[in-house]
């Protein structure tokens, strides 16, 4: 599998990563090599093998729907890049 320039740009957009124009061919090269490595797993037949997402066969735990966390907005917002009146600010989305 080799990824061309436009595919790299498409993946970068899907992942919301700005990448420099001059780096695209390096990414295309490196990602293609990694995918080449990944595709060696096609050497084994996995027909009828069930996929596992997890090493242990876990089921999701349920808990009572109770409030267990306290509101710590001010503390958490100390890490925010830009806030105003308790809100996180981002560039205008709707004109």
């Amino acid at each position, binding site marked *: 599998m080799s990824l061309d320039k436009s595919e790299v740009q498409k993946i970068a957009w*899907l992942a919301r990563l700005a990448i420099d124009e001059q780096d695209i061919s390096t990414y295309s090269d490196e990602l293609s090599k*990694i995918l080449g490595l990944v595709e060696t797993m096609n050497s084994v037949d996995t027909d009828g093998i069930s996929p596992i997402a997890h090493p*242990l066969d876990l089921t*999701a735990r349920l808990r009572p729907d109770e409030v267990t966390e306290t509101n710590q907005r001010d503390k958490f917002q100390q890490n*925010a890049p830009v806030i105003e009146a308790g809100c996180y600010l981002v560039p205008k989305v709707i004109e």
Partner: protein
Amino acid sequence: MHLSTLAQLSTALESRQISSEELTRLYLERCKKFNDSLNCFITINEDSAMAQAKSADEQRAAGKGSALTGIPIAQKDIFCTNGIKTSCGSKMLDNFIAPYDATVIEKMNAAGIVNIGKTNMDEFAMGSSNETSFYGPVKNPWDKDYVPGGSSGGSASAVAARLSPAATGTDTGGSIRQPASLCGITGLKPTYGRVSRYGMVAFASSLDQGGPMTQTAEDAALMMNVIAGFDQRDSTSAEVPVDDYTAKLNDSIDGLKIGLPKEYFDEGLDSNIAKLIEDGIKELEKLGAVCKDIELPNTQLSIPAYYVVAPAECSSNLSRFDGVRYGYRCDNPEDLSDLYCRSRGEGFGKEVKRRIMIGAYVLSAGYYDAYYLKAQQVRHLIRDDFQNAFKEVDIIAGPTATGTAFKLNEKINDPVSMYLSDIYTVSVNLAGLPAMSVPAGFSNKLPVGMQLIGNYFEESKLLNIAHRYQQATDWHLQVPGGFE
């Protein structure tokens, strides 16, 4: 004093031979003296460590506290520490002060352990050499031209140089065991779900597991006694009773059946290392263990499967870094889309971006079955390989890494070659098993680690074998020149 193990320091504190304040000051001085050359700490917690030490001394004076109360231990900078910078080795979190403690940190604080500093690491734990850190590479104390391994390279280097008597690490594909091997220390990756992941910055959630990096197996047992256990706040935490990990350390290993996978001793393994591992296994045989050749036929497939599963989970986990609520934000974003793309493009380093893109690709429409589903099927085969092996043997032994530490810059521009060097460690994470690396000798003056792999929740057995091995050998007592 700085060459003491956790067990020895515990006795020294208990008998009032030294106070926690004295001990903490001693290690802080070492950290400050050697960090310029080794770069193993991102943050040294001078003030808060001294305050914790004072409080530990008060606890001990009042007859309270436990085995590790008052002992300084370094924390990998992936664990959230309330009020202390938690960078995960990334520019993205360079300005992040964690607003809460990870469960591991909470438990260690409650046990009176002094958090001496936050150790350097590969960015978001993605790397095998500690060269992907935003804060620069860590150096191997055995030879500063060499890498310490990764991703827990700062922790491994700090313990090897005795800047901290022990440290925490995390292991997604070998990130505790491989640096432990390359730096000549003891590292334990517990069973998936044994140690809480709450507050541990997520890389690949179905593989990540925290654990101890220490001088000895006994010390790893002491640390496990503090950090292991069920946690309501971790949705995949194991509800399985916790052992007293020190209780069986001295048990006999007479009759223990050790499996030697032929795939771990093939042409990919450095011949000096093969010899040292064979010697290590002979030591275990002298203690009564019996060896048997086994097969783990899908070992070669673990790397490709891992490089689908781990990037897929990473691309999902790291989508939270969007420049809005915390972390790095680019200057003067034009619009929301520009804010996301440039904050992430500028905030993440190259290796992290590569893995996010691989993950986004394998999960994208039209490719999911060919990559992600296939990798999960292969994962099933790998888990079955181990379970078949454990029908015949008690533990599996082999090398931790294909070679000793490599030179700085030797592999950093060739990601695929870096990935392939993790062949003996990643399958353990895919299967979720516990495994250790213990010092087993030196090749060209660089340390070599022997890996012991156990069945689910058999950490006590691994620690027992490693402890008996360390009673019979002294590789784990070797200290790099200039740090004695």
